[in-house]
């Protein structure tokens, strides 16, 4: 029964549909939720879905992690290191940008006392 899921095409379909579903869950939260922290959580969920899609599409079942360990002589039959390097830096940058956005939210709350994004209509402080 489980052998059906081990085909590489089926795994790719699972990865694409799954990460798209996570993206749309984040989009749903972004549209329907009102609190600003919820907005940031939704954006973070959408980010992680994109990371999953990137890493998942470079995954081959019979290949190894791109790290040389004992008993290996060369870098044959290893996964593509470029998407991993890109996502590695993207996660760190995403976290720093998230901290910046949260600081904007804190400062706005200090100035106006609002956390509801529907009420954030004033541009002046």
């Amino acid at each position, binding site marked *: 029964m489980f052998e*059906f899921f081990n085909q590489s095409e089926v795994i790719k379909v699972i990865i694409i549909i799954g990460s798209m579903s*996570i993206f749309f869950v984040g989009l749903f939260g972004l549209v329907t939720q009102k609190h600003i*922290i919820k907005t940031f959580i*939704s954006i973070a*969920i959408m980010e*992680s879905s994109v990371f999953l899609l990137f890493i998942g599409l470079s995954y081959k079942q019979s290949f190894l992690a791109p790290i040389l360990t004992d008993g290996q002589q060369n870098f044959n039959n290893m996964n593509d290191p470029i998407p*991993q390097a890109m996502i590695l830096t993207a996660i*760190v940058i995403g976290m720093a940008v998230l901290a910046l956005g949260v600081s904007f939210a804190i400062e706005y*709350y200090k100035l106006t006392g609002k956390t509801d994004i529907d009420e954030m209509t004033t541009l002046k402080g």
Partner: protein
Amino acid sequence: MIGFLILCTFIGIIIIAFASVTQKKLSNAIILFMGVGLGSVILFFIFKAPDVALTEAVIGSGISSLIFLIALKHLKGKR
């Protein structure tokens, strides 16, 4: 077997993410968001990307949630 594991982890992440964005209480939402990060770590490890898995474990489910909790502490204060 590995494909079934990937499918189950994806379904779990989707359920936890939906619960996180529809949660009324904000601290519960942040803790469920940590769960999304944990599921991502498992998937990155299955996808043979241990560097990304370590990064996501430290950042996605560690420091990000702490930043959210500190922000919640600030927002819930006065007024």
